[in-house]
């Protein structure tokens, strides 16, 4: 029976509670793994620090890169980090998808009164990324403070395209999870995504035209990471904003369909 607030609210409440419970379990596990967690956290911070130091050092020698100043390039870099880390916090479960399937845990997901896709993708939360995203938010604020005055529409487009980017990343994660269910292999599929995402650290304009098109149309890293920052700077035409939104609107149902099809073919892989 749906509650007094309606079935939609009840479902959201249920999933929120499941997420909180699994997130709490993940946090407890990470807290018991203190030295390991500290090492991973320090590694993420080192990576962030060195890249930022690299950018700052590079701009000691040049005025602009591909037509962007230091502050603008930093905006691209911070936007990449915000989108990427948000996705890592929310969809971390996909990184262990193949193991979930091959060890038989996925069979349990299927009989639980909860979406197996939700269990597979969202029920593992990496708290180290939550800690890492705090300095990223602070640094993004510092970058914002150095930008010229921009209209509220720019900020609205920035926020919308960031959300859109996270949605597109979710579509890719669904695809990877579906491949794990379908093949019980392709463990490295998520890592190839991570390596290709590396290209999003720089504005897409630094790449050769062919690569730029590939990153906009083929593997749309640019849509996830470069578009929000370009929209904020007022350098993205309405056509590309519509394209970005339409791409996610198509990619999400398609990956969802692929997931459902993969689950329908699944015949259990453990003993």
């Amino acid at each position, binding site marked *: 029976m749906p509650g007094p607030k309606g079935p939609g609210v009840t479902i959201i409440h249920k999933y929120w509670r499941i997420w909180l419970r699994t997130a709490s379990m993940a946090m407890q596990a990470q807290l018991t793994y203190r*030295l390991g967690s500290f090492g*991973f956290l320090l590694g993420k911070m080192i990576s962030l620090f060195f890249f930022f130091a690299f950018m700052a050092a590079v701009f000691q020698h040049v005025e602009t890169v591909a037509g962007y100043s230091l502050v603008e390039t930093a905006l691209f870099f911070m936007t990449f980090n915000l989108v990427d880390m948000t996705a890592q916090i929310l969809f971390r479960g996909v990184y262990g998808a193949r193991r979930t399937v091959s060890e038989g845990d996925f069979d349990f997901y299927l009989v639980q009164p909860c979406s197996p896709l939700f269990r597979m993708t969202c029920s593992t939360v990496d708290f180290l990324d939550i800690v890492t995203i705090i300095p990223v938010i602070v640094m993004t604020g510092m970058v914002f403070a150095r930008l010229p005055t921009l209209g509220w529409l720019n900020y609205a487009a920035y926020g919308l395209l960031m959300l859109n980017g996270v949605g597109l990343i979710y579509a890719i994660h669904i695809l990877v999870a579906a491949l794990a269910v379908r093949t019980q292999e392709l463990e*490295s599929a998520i890592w190839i995504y991570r390596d290709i995402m590396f290209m999003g650290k720089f504005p897409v304009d*630094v790449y050769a035209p062919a*690569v730029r098109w590939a990153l906009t149309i083929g593997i749309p890293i640019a849509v996830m990471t470069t578009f929000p920052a370009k929209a904020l700077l007022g350098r993205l035409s309405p056509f590309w904003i519509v394209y970005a939104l339409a791409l996610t609107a198509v990619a999400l149902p398609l990956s969802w369909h692929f997931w459902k099809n993969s689950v329908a073919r699944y015949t259990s892989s453990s003993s």
Partner: protein
Amino acid sequence: MKKYRVAYQIALQETLQRRSTLIMDRLGGFAVVVSLYSFWTALIGDKATFLGYTRAEMLTYVLALNILRSFVFTGRGWQLVGEISSGRISSYLIRPLSYHGYALALDLAQKTIHVAASFFEVSLLAVCVRGELFLPRDPATWLLFSVAVLLSSLLFFFLEFMVSSLAFWTSESGGPLFCFELFLQFAAGAFFPLDVLPLGLRRALEATPFPYMVYFPVRIFLEKVPPFEAMGMLGMEALWLMAVFTAAMMIWRRGVRSYAAEGG
């Protein structure tokens, strides 16, 4: 030696058997190289030199990174952590072989495949950039570079082995290893030449063994270092290798003494 040769051959076959994983690994690494290559191309723009590197030298640096990443940064650290934590290391300790020799044989198999793949990728990119690359004029440079890369590879192997051996005392050694590898890649110059860093920071890094893994070998290849100075660098690298090897073996022996495994 025969047993290590057999281990090498089996590892080679295993790596080639997992072709999809290999192709995906290479594709991911290639994306990083294309990314860095494009960024440096944008940085150089129409300038004749940037940070003392000509366009051809800088682009060669980025492409050499791909080969060096494949040859230097493919240790057995994560496998060692897994084997100690799970207790699988016990079965190696009772075998009539040296674990280090066995791990080196497996590592060499991995390097063989990845270096071959990286040469193919670099050739592909070299064709795309229409041969705008720097190749050493002095034949001695090739020899010096080869020795430097060989020493770098062993240096990384034993450094990683040393950090991974923490697993003998704690089941949480994955974190420190992750942190170490990330720091090492930046400090070695595997993302950008260390010339870009402020002088003080660069000097501090140059006093560590890390730049000997990528930055110095590429500088030798680009003939930025006179041959006599390059030989001095190799001597220093050999000293670092001896120091790291001694420390790694000492930690290993202590670790094995404190190691205990339960169950069958």
